[in-house]
């Protein structure tokens, strides 16, 4: 990894999505062939507006697409295996154990009738074959690792007794319980108060770095993406239109849509003291032809890593 004259050997991606297509029935296609790689331990961001297809991409990797949506083409290679070719049982075994997901709404994502501790412990019972008393102890440990104060007490509470940020931490504890190789986080902080968001994001970053868990972070929030991700893919109307290292993307966006997205952010100091300003609309920056299923994908290669990757 260091000093080799021809450059470092790229490690095998933990997730390799090729030409993924998702649709409803025959005629209605929502995802028009999306391809990207995530390296082990890497945090990869998928950014785009609502309806761009970023969420269903994440769901399809997990195998949680709801009828009538289904994968109509392409491959999803996870740790060397195309999970789309696996049977339901094999796929289910991966879920929670090797790949995990955290969702947007912590309010409704937990079973209201079971204690938080039990819901975490369930992971250990199912995937590690522990008995319940063992699993409960591990659950308390898990709560500790996500920095929930008074973990033994908290484990006995019900979801409605916790705040939104706390619930999301519980979700993270559940997702990372079995130390998966890939964590998919679908808008993990969108439903939380601004003051709580940073803490949750930091937690994800820290825990995943410690275990070498790769993260697919899906968000519409450019700030979140900028802070967390090493590499970013921009999605628009079912296509991946641009993919660059984060810094490069923000400094030098290639695709008109990305430029539009960046321009649409309100910027401190962009208004003259006497003038009135309007936010730049996306349509002002990118034309209709440059969007949609025929939009090109503009990517730049990954930058050299300065530290050894997992």
């Amino acid at each position, binding site marked *: 990894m260091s000093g080799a004259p021809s450059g470092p050997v790229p490690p095998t991606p933990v997730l390799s999505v090729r030409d993924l297509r998702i649709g409803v029935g025959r005629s209605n296609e929502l995802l028009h062939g999306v391809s990207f790689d995530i390296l082990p331990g890497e945090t990869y961001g998928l950014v785009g507006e609502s309806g761009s297809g970023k969420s269903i991409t994440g769901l399809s990797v997990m195998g949680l697409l709801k009828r009538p949506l289904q994968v109509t083409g392409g491959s999803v290679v996870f740790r060397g295996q195309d999970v789309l070719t696996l049977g339901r049982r094999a796929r289910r075994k991966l879920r929670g154990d090797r790949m995990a997901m955290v969702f947007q709404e912590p309010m*409704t*994502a937990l079973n*209201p009738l079971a204690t938080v501790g039990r819901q975490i412990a369930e992971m250990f019972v199912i995937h590690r074959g522990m008995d319940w008393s063992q699993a409960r102890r591990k659950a308390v440990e898990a709560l500790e690792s996500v920095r929930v104060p008074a973990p033994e007490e908290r484990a006995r509470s019900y979801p409605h007794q916790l705040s939104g940020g706390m619930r999301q931490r519980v979700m993270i504890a559940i997702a990372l319980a079995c130390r998966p190789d890939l964590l998919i986080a679908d808008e993990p902080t969108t439903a939380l108060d601004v003051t709580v968001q940073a803490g949750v994001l930091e937690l994800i970053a820290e825990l995943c770095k410690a275990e070498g868990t790769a993260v697919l972070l899906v968000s519409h929030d450019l700030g979140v993406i900028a802070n967390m991700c090493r590499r970013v893919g921009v999605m628009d109307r079912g296509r991946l239109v641009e993919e660059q290292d984060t810094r490069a993307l923000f400094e030098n966006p290639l695709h008109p849509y990305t430029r539009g997205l960046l321009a649409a952010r309100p910027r401190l100091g962009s208004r003259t003291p006497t003038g009135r300003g309007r936010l730049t609309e996306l349509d002002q920056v990118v034309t209709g032809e440059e969007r949609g299923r025929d939009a090109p994908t503009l990517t730049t290669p990954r930058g050299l890593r300065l530290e050894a990757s997992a």
Partner: protein
Amino acid sequence: MLRFILRRMLQMIPTLLAVVLIIFVIFSVVPGSFITSLMSEGRNVMNADVLAHLNEQFGLDKPLPVRLWDYLWGLAHFDLGISYRTRSPVWDVIEPRLWPSVKLALAAMGFAAVVGIPLGFLAALKPGSVFDTGTMMMAVSGLSLPEFWFGLLLMYVFALHLGLLPSFGYQAGSIKYIILPAVALGVSPMALLARTTRAGVLDVMNADFVRTARAKGLSEPRLVRTHVTRNVLVLVLTTLGLQVGSLMGQAIVIEKLFSWPGIGSLLVDSVSTRDIPVVQGTVIVIVLWFLVINMLVDVAYAAIDPRIKVT
């Protein structure tokens, strides 16, 4: 929890009082009561003196508010008055009818729950399938079925044609007398339970936390068992309770049809004989049953759902 129960019991009282008031007022408007109908029938010609004496005996000569007050006072002492017809306390007339009615209601509900809830569950787990459509069609038919007609048909097939079950009568401790009336009475609640369960399961299966459970890697059977069932129960409990509560009233016709010696048939009989005190007493009992069941449902809710504060 005990305080919760006590509070709910206290809350029943105003409703009960209001019911008593309404029934009392309605029946004070009755143009004739048992006593005067005796006169008009002409069989027993009573002269005015006897009539006046009877009126006085039953307190009918007093003005309405006084009668109401007397009645309420009696209620507070658990005294429901005297039956016009039998001259015995109303409670003695009602009391032997209570248990048969309760038995019938519970049997009908048992049938409805045992058949309806699983059907609804299974229908929801395969939405849009033939089984689902078929079950729902059957459910809507069950709700549209006049239960006394269904009871009549059951009687015809099972009792008269096949001779398997008795078509009327009551025998404490024997099952075969209760089967036909329980099934006839239970069809409608069963249909409603099937529909409500199905809707509940669909709601729950679409809920976010079920998606989380799938993301955790739970198998479908385990998911349904540990996460779905309890949540559905919470939704279904209301319907279950409401049905049991109103079964007493719905049982009226079935009881008459099968000659089942319960509160319902007592009500009908006392209405036709204009035995007002018994009518009032029966209505009070029926309403009380409804209110008590409602309270039990609330208690069950508080026990199952941790979100409900029990204060």
